């Protein structure tokens, strides 16, 4: 039987179905319009964002919560340019994303046609790879390749740009097959020789420390990591992207190190004699000035991306491979080895006792974010997904929230994109309608993408939002206090405009407000009871609170500022 010809647009939708994509996020427009027509009949759920940046972050949130591909679709020109922030964000945080953009017709390309942007050029440095389709028959194959590239090796965003005439061109459906890509062969299995060298160092070490990050989560290696740490008694620090990779509350879990890391995590790195770095990239927010970073430590650095190894810090033992395979290899080769780390753990425990994470919440004083977080965590579900913005509140969440499972903490770590939280939380809730999804956002961040609250209401995505309303770009204010003599240039937002409760109501959500300690429990109870609509809590907090500990950018991790008093040190 002669197979029916399909339009390029139909090939796109059928191609996505073939990839088992169930949910996509997007905004339609001229050049991509042909693809929206077959979508109308497809079982794929399309969630209509109110801005393409939002749609991109939704797809990221979906991908980060599930560990699977997120898909976003946009039109040419402004649709594509609006996507770029989310693509770059996904690139920095290694999130598997497939973006499909419409393009002006092939003939018009290069002529400054209406809504033409050079999408492939503009996104070259913001994606892991991108494609411009020149014939409709390529579509199924390219979509399969794009998914393969996005989800394997070090995951990342891949963009496929499709001119409008190609979307209308007829072609046969050719069953896509994963063929070898000659230039793309990620190394997954760690070299046993390297594992042996690593094991030799570990056996010699008195103060080993696992320094782990997002790579553990991408590799779904948290169980193996747990076994490694537990069996050989090695303490663990989890970076901002690695929170949840090892359970907070476990004796060996030291939490987040770095610029706003807790004292014990940061100092343990400084005191360690062997860093077992897995799925981390020695980011400047962790290392501060790399010259002073872990000066007494040898380094085993395992990563799936060879370019990360030796980029910032030379490694005594470089291991290219998937985190899971690396950790399994280490456990295997360590065998029945007993590591004598009890002195080291005692040293760490003493640090923990001398330098606990603290905060004070006055009975009648303004609300403090850490206090609110503690109360909220007590009331929320164990597997709730927490999605943060960027700023002080993000650091407080990472410091004070107890993450016990991977993929329950979503944030914009590498790019630090304000506006990420709400749309990413929508994406996560779209993936897991039955789980509690909490967007814990700053007021400044919220205002960057708050129109997506309309998306949540109209698409029936009943997530919870807490806006930490300190009336300020709090993190900017904190830097201005410390480094710019209290000259608060352009960092004030005001507490009262907008009226977040009314804004929430206007956007089809429920709005609540808390301003005092006595209200916290009741308001959260109400928030958690409502499950048929999005709920937003305007949480009015102290504008003058500062995040500590802190190591100023470019400083040494040996000099940690623990409180306002300590600021005199710098």
């Amino acid at each position, binding site marked *: 039987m002669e197979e029916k010809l399909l339009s390029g647009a139909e090939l796109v939708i059928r191609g996505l179905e073939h990839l088992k994509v169930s949910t996509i996020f997007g905004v339609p427009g001229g050049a991509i319009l042909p693809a929206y027509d077959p979508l109308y009949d497809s079982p794929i759920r399309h969630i209509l964002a109110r801005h393409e940046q939002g749609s991109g972050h939704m797809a990221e949130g979906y991908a980060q919560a599930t560990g699977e591909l997120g898909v976003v679709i946009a039109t040419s020109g402004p649709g594509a340019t609006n996507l770029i922030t989310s693509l770059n964000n996904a690139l920095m945080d290694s999130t598997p994303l497939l973006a499909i953009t419409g393009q002006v017709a092939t003939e018009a390309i290069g002529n400054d046609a209406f809504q033409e942007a050079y999408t492939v*050029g503009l996104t*070259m*440095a913001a994606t892991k790879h991108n494609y*411009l389709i020149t014939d409709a028959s390529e579509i199924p194959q390219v979509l399969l390749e794009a998914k393969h590239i996005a989800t394997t090796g070090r995951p990342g965003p891949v963009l496929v740009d499709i001119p409008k005439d190609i979307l209308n061109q007829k072609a046969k459906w050719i069953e896509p097959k994963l063929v070898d890509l*000659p*230039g*793309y062969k990620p190394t997954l299995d760690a070299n046993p020789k390297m594992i042996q060298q690593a094991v030799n160092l570990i056996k010699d070490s008195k103060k080993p420390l696992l320094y782990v990050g997002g790579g553990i989560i991408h590799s779904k290696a948290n169980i193996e990591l747990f076994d490694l740490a537990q069996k050989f008694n090695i303490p663990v620090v989890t970076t901002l992207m690695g929170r949840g990779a090892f359970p907070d509350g476990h004796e060996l879990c030291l939490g987040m190190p770095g610029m706003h890391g807790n004292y014990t995590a940061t100092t343990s790195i400084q005191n360690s004699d062997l860093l077992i770095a897995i799925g981390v990239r020695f980011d400047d927010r962790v290392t501060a000035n790399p010259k002073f970073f872990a000066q007494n430590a040898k380094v085993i650095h395992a990563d799936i*991306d060879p*370019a990360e190894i030796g*980029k910032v810090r030379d490694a005594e033992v470089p291991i290219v491979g998937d985190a899971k395979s690396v950790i399994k290899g280490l456990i295997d080769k360590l065998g029945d080895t007993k590591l004598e780390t009890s002195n080291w753990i005692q040293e760490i425990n003493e640090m923990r006792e001398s330098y606990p994470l603290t905060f004070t919440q006055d009975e009648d004083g303004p609300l403090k974010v850490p206090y609110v977080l503690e109360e909220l965590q007590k009331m929320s579900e164990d597997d709730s997904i927490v999605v943060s913005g960027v700023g002080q509140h993000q650091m407080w969440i990472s410091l004070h929230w107890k993450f016990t499972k991977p993929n329950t903490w979503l944030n914009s770590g590498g790019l630090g994109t304000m506006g990420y939280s709400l749309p990413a939380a929508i994406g996560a809730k779209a993936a897991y309608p039955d789980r509690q999804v909490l967007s814990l956002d700053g007021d400044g961040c919220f205002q960057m993408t708050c129109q997506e609250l309309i998306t949540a209401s109209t698409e029936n995505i009943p997530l919870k939002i807490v806006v930490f309303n300190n009336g300020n770009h709090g993190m900017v204010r904190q830097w201005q206090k410390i480094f710019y003599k209290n000259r608060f240039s352009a960092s004030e937002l005001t507490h009262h405009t907008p009226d977040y409760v009314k804004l929430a109501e206007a956007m089809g959500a429920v709005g609540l407000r808390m301003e005092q300690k006595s209200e916290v429990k009741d308001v959260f109870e109400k928030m958690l009871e409502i499950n048929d609509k999005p709920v937003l809590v305007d949480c009015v907090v102290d504008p003058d609170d500062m995040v500590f500990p802190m190591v100023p950018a470019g400083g040494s991790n040996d000099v940690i500022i623990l409180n306002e008093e300590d600021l005199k040190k710098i």
Partner: protein
Amino acid sequence: MSERILSVLVEDKPGVLARISSTISRRGFNINSLSVGPTNIDGRSKMTIVTELESVEQVKKQLNKLINVIKIVELDPDNTIESEVLLMKVSINKDSQTSVIEKANLSGAKSVDVGQDYAVFELTGTSKELKKFENLMKPFGIIEMIRGGRIAIQSNL
């Protein structure tokens, strides 16, 4: 400073040169020369990239991340055959004509076009030889000069 030469096999796809140069400039790598051309294999091009020793590891690793880059070989500095082509237009007059052409030919350059007041030379050689030739011709007045970029191949020795 010590140089390293990379021979980069790439898929001959639209945008591949842009991807490579974008990666190089985005990462702030120092590149002394880059040339590109077809190979004997269909659908494959080869780039020769000359960079500094300090950045060579990162250049290799970052370029290897590009999907269209198939293979990168760092050539052994002691065992490399290197070549570059140069075209140069030099001004001449009745008095200088003979001496310019003679000097050029002695350097191994070919005169490919000689006019009333100019001569065009073509020279193939290592970058050192080309530089030497440039210095030799400078006093006569170089009107225009183009170099084709360095290419290199590993010897089997």
